[in-house]
């Protein structure tokens, strides 16, 4: 599978070092993240390749929020990095048994498996958090009792779309009206 690499400044490069000019042509390529990539690099990528912003209804609002945020030091003290993960989950109950595959974005500590839900953390505290591509979690029969972990690859499309979807859940107000 061909690879595309996201740089800290939001640029996309092919594995032989050539800069990508048309992001659509590499949407199906396996993504690798260069060192020092943060969530801000994701938004820089959207700025460089505006065509990508047409893939999700959340982008106009997210980009508006992004433009109003400080240019540095947007960090969240309770986690060390943000991890983009794929989960395969077998669910036996309630309802009919089913298998679900989904992507998620969560906060992680340097050590330990605890995953932190980011939906209550404002975007302004996440932008400069290091970002990595996590392993695939295979949950057997729900309730996260038995979980296997595997190495996997993510395509550029999964990354662009999955992060946008996840950030679409962030709506915690900064302050109460009253």
């Amino acid at each position, binding site marked *: 599978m061909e690879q595309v690499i996201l740089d800290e400044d939001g640029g996309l490069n092919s594995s032989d070092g050539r800069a990508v000019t048309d992001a659509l042509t590499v949407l199906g390529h396996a993504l690798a993240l260069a060192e020092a990539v943060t969530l801000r690099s994701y938004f820089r990528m959207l700025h460089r390749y505006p065509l990508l912003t047409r893939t999700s209804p959340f982008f106009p609002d997210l980009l508006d929020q992004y433009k109003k945020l400080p240019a540095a030091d947007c960090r969240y003290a309770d986690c060390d990095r943000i991890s983009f993960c794929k*989960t395969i989950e077998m669910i036996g109950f309630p309802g009919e048994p089913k298998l679900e595959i*989904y992507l*998620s974005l969560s906060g992680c500590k340097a050590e330990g498996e605890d995953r932190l839900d980011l939906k209550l953390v404002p975007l302004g505290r996440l932008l400069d958090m290091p970002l990595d591509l996590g392993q695939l979690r295979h949950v057997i029969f729900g309730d996260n009792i038995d979980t296997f972990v595997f190495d996997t690859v993510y395509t550029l499309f999964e990354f662009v779309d999955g992060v946008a979807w996840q950030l679409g859940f962030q709506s915690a107000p900064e302050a109460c009206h009253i």
Partner: protein
Amino acid sequence: MFKKLLFATTASPVCDNAAKVAFDLELKWDAELILFHVLGVPTRGYSPFITDVRTGETEQIDNDYVDWVREEMKHTYADLLKDSENNRIEAVVGAPHREILRKARTENADMIIMGSHTREEDVGASRYRQIVGSTMQKVAKGARCPVVVISRPCTTCWKLFSNIVVGTDFSKAADSAFGWAYRLAKNVDARLHLFHAVDITKDAIGADHGQVEIETRLEEARDKIENHHLSKVTDYDNYTVEVWEGTPYVEILKFAREVQADLIVMAHHTREIDPEKALLGSTVEQVVLRSACPVASVNRPDKAWEIDPD
């Protein structure tokens, strides 16, 4: 006002956010709060065995077991019960949605309060699965009273709410939603924000719409709001009207954030005229999971126009 509130709970941490709002409302409205938990589905008929609704495990049921569950509920909500003045704790066996609806009907509850899921869910998963819990969907579909769904900590002050957003698409169910929101706003002297999003995504995905066409549709929507809803407003002027274009659930969430809404009121899947056939609309589902404030879904007119404005 609200005399009887039914808080349908799984008695587990997934309902903690809803619990806080339910107890707050009990004190605010001086109402009776019924904490109602359906602990399991009988394996068959009047079987003494039940399938636990959360774990799927089989348990033997008798009066002692039910009493034990009620005791456990008291422990779970011990902190909140300390300040509560008028509550009842009940645990029953049955299909959750049916029992909750039965309870709401027999008690003539003014409002059902619940969380959005039975299990702790990863929100990323919601794209691939039924987006809100099936119990919540069925209750919302069948309930004659408004159903308030709380899916995350209520960071705004619903107890002292000052901004109510009502999303409308001019259907019969939306009339009920508006009616309930209007009476409520009038009662608590909150500002009512009447909102409609012109859905420019459903005609043809990715199609570009001309500015003139969008402007025309926005104007038409404003006229409809005037005819459908504002014609029913009497002696009340603390309201605003907004019509935006875009993807409806994205726009209503943006608008709610902009006006710092304390409550969003919407109708269920509103293109269905017959409430018997209405499942929770996808717009409501998306709003429920993403909204920072509680979301009330109103399906029928029964309680909508009943609230005493005094």
